[in-house]
């Protein structure tokens, strides 16, 4: 086996390991990775989301099982100090010596700190690693405490990274100053017009911008910092962040005698090899033709090239797309292709709308037939459509592409197959179309997992939808052959018309007599109206799937399982005894569920009321395990018992479970509350997940375990209990109203245009003006809740359904047979 040593476990170094692991099925390489940071690879591009409350673990980029200690080994907190090229070994800071057959340098870059007098003073920071962010946060909090108010901060550098840092300071409660040497913000990405709008939008966010300006010196001044700018302004500060660009980390290579480019960076050729044929360099530390790339996409492309070369291929790095689209302080900025019109003869088409606060510029060839690049500020929604068109012939007048708003669907169709739809993973339109056809993909999550498109920055997701539609995947929202409407449309019809029966709905708005798809969907919609009465009343009984009809979960042999509600997973010994006695008396197989309750299996239809009589008498209620409904709110013991707990997670879990019990939804809903950041309740894998903080609660939504696991998105940070519950109310009701049939919150959230930010706008800022309505609907639900099983036991008519045979009600189904396994009955 050959030995590969990778120096650096940043995004690009990790990508190399993943890409080689994917290609190298026969394990020709044993990989050892040496990482200098204490953390393994994380998403540095999303670094500032750390200040939104995203945990460091969520930024983690290393897949489970990646480092098995056999084929792939990772050493952290360890730097490579020397390379001996003749012996083919590297030496590390821990005195380790490793032999290599191939060596890949992925050492990244270091922040550039301009030579300002005073830059070494305490309070001066850089913005590159999670440790840097921790230090900035600690300094900001210490200053705020010391002064009993807000800390004051300054960011040196008004480029992409500088504005990210400014955003971080904003999130820490400061009104930062940004100092930029160039005459405008983001000088590399935007032009004068775009820069002017960007400055207006950023200044409206309480950020003071100083352009054409630099820092003369920083000095200590009565425990704080005093910065003197070249425009003679003096600023009293607690904190300075330098983010004025980066410099390639090429010192290790230089010491080993490898040449560096004129502006730094380890010299490589198109195969990403240094002049030493056993040594490669990739990412920000490398320089091809003297040029280093400070973006992740080119680094990823280099990693793929090296993985291919190490697998015997002959891939070359063909330069890279330096397009960027980002949201800076909530302001959209995108820049792509020849944004500054450097191509000879290039023409510029500009639309500057001061009212809408948007700026768009396209750069086209001298005959206006080919798109060369562009800049978007204020609204970058057209970026995913425009960027792939770079280099392609334009069908019409270029101005039509930026004003008025074009239809994205039409644009996707005009795109050539060679156009790159996902620039993060270099996936072309042709590759996506092929995957859709070959793997018979029908939805965006399928395209994502099959092609990786859309899994980077996510900006191309709207295009993926269009490509699915273009490939002939039926995107009809019709529920089934009986209704031409989507579930959300039917919900609105029912809500507005006040229709209360399936018959009326299908006669007025559908055809035929329904089926196993539309009937349960309509039953759920009717149940959500809180005016429908018991699920087994009148015609509703015939709409229910067998689980809802018998209020139990059918199992493979036709028997049912019974799950009493145990709110928050908290139960008294006496109630536990009741469950035990019922299980013993009816010989039910008993198992603890993942939702912290108890499932009793093997009950026949005619036994269900007898079982529930005992349970209801002891104070139990239906657990709705059978329904597309709120299931459990799992919890850890929280501050009541746990020495680490910071909030009372059990009380909140119980409150939530009792509040939402019985709520019918497009699919099941699971929730959890963790009493501290250790997350023992696994809340981030739930539809609604709540994690306690020192100051309140963080609310996550749209998580999922199961078939397609998804971590929940952070919706709110550090809120009080009332705000939390109000927002969960709205989230659930909005989901109940608008999601498709059998759509879990995970795919519903993922499919929302604008994602979690849109959801926050709707639920917190009431951008659709529906919050009052959602609140009222939830209030009605809470008020009208009644236990369904008690409702069955009280009603002879409903009870009469629970018989084995209509002509032999007492005869048990003779086909149901059991055997014994580990002391319990299981299906024969």
């Amino acid at each position, binding site marked *: 086996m050959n030995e590969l040593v990778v120096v650096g476990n940043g995004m690009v170094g990790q990508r190399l390991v993943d890409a080689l692991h994917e290609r190298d099925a026969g394990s020709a390489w044993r990989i050892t990775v040496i990482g200098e940071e204490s953390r393994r690879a994380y998403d540095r591009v999303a670094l500032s989301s750390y200040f939104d409350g995203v945990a460091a673990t969520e930024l983690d980029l290393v897949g489970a099982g990646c480092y098995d200690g056999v084929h792939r080994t990772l050493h952290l907190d360890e730097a490579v100090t020397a390379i001996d090229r003749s012996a083919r070994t590297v030496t590390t800071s821990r005195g380790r010596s490793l032999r290599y057959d191939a060596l890949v340098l992925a050492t990244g870059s270091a922040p550039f700190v301009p030579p300002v007098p005073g830059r070494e003073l305490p309070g001066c920071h850089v913005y590159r690693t999670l440790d840097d962010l921790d230090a900035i946060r600690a300094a900001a909090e210490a200053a705020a405490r010391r002064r009993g108010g807000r800390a004051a901060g300054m960011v040196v550098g008004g480029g992409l990274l500088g504005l990210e840092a400014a955003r971080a300071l904003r999130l820490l409660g400061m009104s930062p100053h940004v100092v930029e040497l160039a005459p405008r913000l983001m000088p590399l990405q935007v032009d004068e017009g775009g820069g002017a709008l960007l400055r207006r939008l950023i200044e409206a966010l309480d950020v003071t911008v100083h352009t054409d300006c630099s820092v003369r010196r920083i000095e200590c001044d009565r425990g704080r910092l005093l910065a003197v700018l070249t425009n003679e302004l003096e600023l009293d500060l607690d904190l300075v962040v330098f983010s004025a660009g980066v410099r390639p980390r090429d010192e290790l290579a230089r010491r080993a005698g490898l040449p560096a480019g004129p502006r730094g960076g380890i010299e490589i050729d198109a195969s990403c090899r240094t002049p030493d044929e056993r040594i490669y360099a990739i990412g920000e530390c490398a320089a091809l033709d003297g040029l280093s790339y400070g973006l992740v996409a080119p680094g990823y492309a280099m990693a793929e090239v090296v993985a291919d070369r190490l697998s015997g291929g002959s891939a070359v790095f063909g330069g890279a797309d330096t397009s960027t689209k980002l949201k800076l302080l909530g302001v959209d900025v995108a820049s792509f292709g020849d944004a500054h019109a450097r191509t000879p003869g290039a023409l510029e088409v500009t639309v500057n709308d001061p009212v809408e606060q948007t700026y768009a510029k396209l750069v086209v060839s001298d005959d206006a037939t080919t798109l060369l690049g562009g800049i978007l500020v204020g609204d970058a929604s057209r970026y995913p459509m425009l960027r792939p068109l770079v280099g392609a012939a334009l069908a019409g007048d270029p101005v039509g592409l930026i004003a008025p708003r074009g239809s994205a669907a039409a644009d996707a169709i005009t795109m050539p197959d060679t156009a790159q739809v996902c620039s993060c993973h270099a996936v072309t339109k042709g590759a996506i179309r092929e995957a859709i056809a070959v793997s018979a993909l029908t939805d965006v999550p399928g395209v994502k997992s099959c092609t990786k498109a859309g899994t980077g920055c996510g900006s191309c997701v709207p295009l993926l939808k269009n490509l699915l539609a273009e490939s002939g995947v039926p995107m009809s929202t019709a529920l089934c052959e009986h209704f031409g409407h989507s579930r959300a449309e039917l919900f609105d019809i029912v809500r507005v018309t006040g229709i209360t029966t399936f018959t009326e709905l299908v006669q007025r708005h559908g055809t035929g007599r329904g089926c196993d798809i539309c009937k349960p969907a309509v039953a759920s919609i009717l149940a959500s109206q809180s005016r429908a009465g018991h699920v087994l009343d009148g015609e509703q009984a015939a709409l229910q799937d067998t689980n809802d009809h018998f209020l139990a979960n059918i199992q493979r042999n036709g028997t049912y399982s019974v799950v009493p509600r145990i709110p928050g997973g908290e139960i008294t010994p006496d109630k536990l005894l009741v469950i035990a006695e019922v299980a013993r008396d009816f010989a039910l197989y008993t198992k603890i569920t993942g939702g912290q309750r108890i499932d009793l299996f093997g009950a026949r239809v005619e036994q269900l009321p007898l079982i529930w009589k005992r349970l209801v008498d002891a104070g139990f209620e239906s657990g709705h395990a059978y329904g597309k409904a709120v299931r459990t709110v799992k919890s850890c013991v929280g501050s009541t018992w746990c020495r680490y707990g910071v909030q009372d997670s059990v009380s909140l879990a119980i409150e939530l479970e009792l509040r939402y019990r019985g709520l019918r939804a497009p699919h099941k809903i699971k929730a959890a509350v963790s009493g501290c950041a250790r997350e023992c309740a696994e809340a981030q894998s739930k539809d609604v997940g709540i994690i306690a903080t020192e100051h309140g609660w963080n609310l996550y939504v749209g998580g999922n375990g199961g078939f397609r696991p998804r971590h929940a998105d952070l919706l709110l940070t550090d809120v009080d209990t009332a705000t939390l519950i109000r927002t969960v109310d709205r989230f659930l009701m909005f989901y109940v109203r608008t999601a498709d049939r059998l759509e879990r919150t995970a795919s519903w959230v993922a499919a929302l245009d604008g994602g979690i930010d849109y959801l926050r706008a709707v639920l917190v800022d009431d951008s659709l003006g529906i919050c009052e309505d959602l609140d009222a609907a939830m209030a009605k639900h809470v008020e009208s809740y009644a236990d369904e099983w008690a409702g069955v036991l009280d009603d002879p008519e409903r009870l009469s359904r629970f018989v084995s*045979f209509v002509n032999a009600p007492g005869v048990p189904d003779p086909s149901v047979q059991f055997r014994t396994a580990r002391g319990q009955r299981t299906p024969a």
Partner: protein
Amino acid sequence: MTAWTRVCEYTDLLPERGVAALVAGEQVALFRTFDGMLHVIGNRDPFTGAFVLARGIVGTRGGAPTVASPLFKQVFDLRTGECVTEAGAAVPVHDVRCVDGVVEVRLRAP
């Protein structure tokens, strides 16, 4: 061919819902559709071997009265017993009549 067996009152049956019955030792599924018609098929789901078809959702597919198995949702035509979602599978169909408000079932020979 067996004799007619009295099973229940017509009014015991809910529209668009099934019940299971024992007829000459066989489990059958008896349905009353929306238009008042009665249908009887074997209660055994051929895909799983479980006797559960009486507990499926009744509806229509292109005008044909149907029931969907509650386990894996294969749909059967109540008139012919044929599975309309997976060609080749079928369940037995039996005779049913209503005499003076009483529903009677007669097994057909397999």
